């Protein structure tokens, strides 16, 4: 713990001593990307040393705006801040603070005879530029997506909300890696208690490192073991902004090409930004399709099993004859048939995702076709089962959100088992339990099915959306400071 003690100390006016401390902390010369530049400032007649980390700072900027002005200076009246053109941040004397700044890509300048360091902004991390959204595709509306650079992400948000009430607060959430999290919210809309709850939760984290938002999600969720997600993750800035304007809170982080929105209701997972970009009728049409797809994914396989095992009489007799003719040659009960194909489909899906890009789609299609056709020919499954599983698999893609998608895919298996045990009785029993569970489930204190039940003032944007002119209210379950959207309060 010798280092810990050292870090809490302040630097003294002896330059050589200070540099030795930093050299030992950074393991120079073993550590190759730490740059230590010694220089002599003519005008002030003093020795100085600049420390930065090459790989995360802009070396051209350091050279042009810090080193060169200092070396060429001959005026003794100027202060350091005036000589250097680079943006001056602060002075620090505590070693820990200086280290933190250097680790973030800034440059620290030490002067002989002064017991403080001058810090300049020279950050330059490498990353990709703003690109198209790949997971949440939409045909109309903006295409840009978040990337791993949080500054760019915040800029994408600010681009859409030109308002001084947009606050970007930063919190350090991990002890060792000093990962920084940005809490984004509208100061005049967000519910203060909710904001405080979230901040308390973030401040109570006691972990070494949280690399990105995907990991953070599990730490701050209330019910992280639940099958339903309680925090929405989106890679679209436009979506994040529309949530912010409703009074939600967004979390951003470096290295995360997405934002976390909280609290989240079932509807925020079910919706897609495109619903509002398309015309009223078209938008509701795709909502209807999505709802149907959701029901089909959940129930179609279970219905098949229930009908074949328990309720044969409900199938029209011609169809029943056709089904039994194809099932005659198959040695398995319906549940095995369905499970075989469902699991095969899940495997293709998972494997197709991990296969290297160029061969991915080919493998997927070929795998599905061959597996389906061959399985029927080999009398392992009946053709109807292939149709049913393909339908349920296809429909599961209509629910765009990854987390909800997983929930539905898993619940589908529960329904299959309940149907195998008790037919329609089992399906409805599980369904009722599910609804009981959903209505009592909460995300950061907000009922999961709000505003459908319990009712709150809102724009009633649930299964279907209203005309934009009629979407007058912010969601009441968030208890925003200002609930009316149209009210002029500037």
């Amino acid at each position: 713990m010798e280092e810990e003690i050292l870090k809490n100390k302040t630097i003294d006016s002896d330059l050589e001593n200070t540099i030795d401390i930093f050299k030992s902390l950074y393991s120079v010369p073993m550590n190759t990307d730490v740059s230590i530049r010694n220089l002599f400032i003519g005008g002030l007649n003093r020795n100085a040393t600049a420390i930065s980390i090459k790989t995360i700072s802009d070396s051209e900027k350091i050279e042009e705006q810090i080193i060169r002005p200092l070396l060429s200076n001959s005026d003794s009246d100027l202060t350091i801040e005036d000589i250097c053109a680079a943006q001056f941040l602060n002075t620090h004397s505590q070693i820990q603070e200086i280290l933190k700044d250097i680790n973030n890509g800034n440059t620290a300048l030490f002067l002989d005879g002064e017991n403080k360091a001058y810090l300049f902004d020279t950050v330059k991390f490498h990353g990709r530029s703003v690109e198209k959204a790949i997971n949440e595709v939409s045909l109309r509306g903006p295409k840009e997506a978040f990337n791993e650079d949080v500054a760019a992400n915040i800029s994408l948000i600010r681009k859409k909300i030109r308002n001084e009430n947009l606050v970007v607060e930063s919190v350090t959430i991990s002890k060792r890696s000093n990962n920084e999290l940005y809490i984004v919210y509208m100061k005049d809309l967000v519910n203060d208690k909710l904001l405080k709850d979230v901040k308390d939760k973030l401040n109570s984290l006691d972990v070494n490192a949280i690399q990105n938002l995907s990991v953070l999600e599990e730490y701050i969720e209330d019910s992280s073991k639940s099958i339903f997600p309680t925090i929405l993750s989106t890679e679209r800035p436009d979506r994040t902004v529309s949530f912010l304007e409703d009074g939600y809170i967004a979390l951003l982080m470096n290295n995360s090409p997405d934002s976390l929105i909280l609290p989240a209701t079932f509807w925020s997972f079910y919706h897609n930004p495109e619903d509002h970009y398309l015309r009223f009728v078209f938008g509701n049409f795709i909502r209807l399709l999505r709802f149907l797809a959701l029901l089909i994914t959940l129930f179609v396989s279970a219905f098949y099993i229930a009908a074949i095992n328990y309720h044969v009489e409900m199938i029209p007799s011609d169809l029943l004859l056709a089904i039994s003719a194809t099932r005659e040659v198959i040695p398995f009960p319906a549940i095995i048939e369905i499970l075989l194909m469902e699991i095969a489909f899940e495997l293709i899906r998972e494997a197709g995702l991990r296969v290297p890009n160029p061969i991915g789609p080919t493998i997927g299609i070929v795998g599905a076709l061959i597996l389906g056709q061959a399985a029927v020919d080999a009398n392992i499954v009946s053709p109807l089962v292939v149709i049913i599983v393909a339908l349920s698999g296809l429909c599961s893609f209509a629910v765009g959100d990854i987390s909800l998608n997983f929930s539905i895919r898993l619940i589908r298996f529960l329904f299959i088992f309940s149907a195998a045990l008790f037919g329609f009785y089992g399906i409805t029993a599980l369904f009722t339990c599910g609804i009981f569970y959903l209505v009592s489930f909460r995300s950061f204190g907000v009922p999961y099915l709000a505003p459908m039940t319990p009712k709150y003032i809102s724009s009633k944007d649930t299964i279907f959306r209203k005309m934009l002119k009629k979407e007058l209210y912010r969601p009441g379950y968030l208890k925003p400071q200002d609930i009316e959207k149209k009210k002029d309060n500037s």
Partner: protein
Amino acid sequence: MKSMEKTQGKIGIKEFVAIILLTVGTKLSDNTPNILYEDIANAAWLSIFLICLIWLIPLVLLIKLNTLYKDKNLIEIIQHLFGKYLGFAILFICWFMQTYVMFYNSVIYPDIIKTMYFNNTPLLVIALVLMAVTSFGAMKGLESIGSTAWITLIVIKISLIMVLVITFLQGEMDFIYPLLGEGGWKLIKESYNNSSIFTEFLYIFFIASSIKNTKVFTKGLWIGYIFVSIEFILALVGYVMIFDYYGIRLLDYPYHETIRYIQLGFLTNVELFFFPFWIVASFIRLSFYLYLSALLFGALFKIKQFQYIVPTLATISVFLGLIPQSITFSIDYLREIFLQIITPFVLSLPLILWITAKLKGELKK
């Protein structure tokens, strides 16, 4: 800025109406119609009309009391008006009646499921699943029961309306004659005897303080009351139109026989398209019964966390339900007697409450 409503722990009008519609409305699809048909044949629908009228006075009195004691529910009103010992006795009777009805239903519903849909499944297993689901719901509390009822209400009622429409299209209008069935006097007598079919409307007052406010409660109650009466009457007319004067008295579960009988275009066996909706309604209904039972038990013995009694009650009811042999006969008989015994009590309780309040001079406030 509009005021923000706090719904924490209280249920709104939609959920409240949904609870009423599912708890009382679902009765038209169990063996309740059978009891009416046995006594008054095809005039059963008229008797619902009469029962509806009979209940008007108790309901008005109860609503008056409820408006008077704004923050209290019927439990607290009874304790307040009758004092410690008499209040306990009356609440105990209420609890006993409620629990009896719950035990009874936890026998009848598995029996419907077994005889009509799952002939080969053991009764015990069906009952266990039923009670597991309903106790899960009851333990989640009134808010969840209300929300679940509201979410599922629309599809359940659509399926019922579909059944009724088909019934009216495929039935014979002439079958409802003679209008008065076995005669006017018998109709009135039996209507009175069986008017405890609507006892739930008395029990609804036990949860009055969990509804958002008294106004919402009163409004929701009337909406539910009118809607339930209309659907009950329509259903009873519909069954007669399908099975006629004589046939209807032989059936144990007219609703289920009806959905077996009707056809939907090329589909000849449609009962399983209606069965899931009916069973969801039944789950919610029994959850509410269990909840009420536990609530009253909690009030009687001062148990704050009364939802923990739910699993015990559910388990007992499953095993008590297994005792009677040949369920439909023995239980039907028991139920008829029970309905006739409790009728004077449930009808006079509101009046007695009101008179006590009047005598205590609290109505003038």
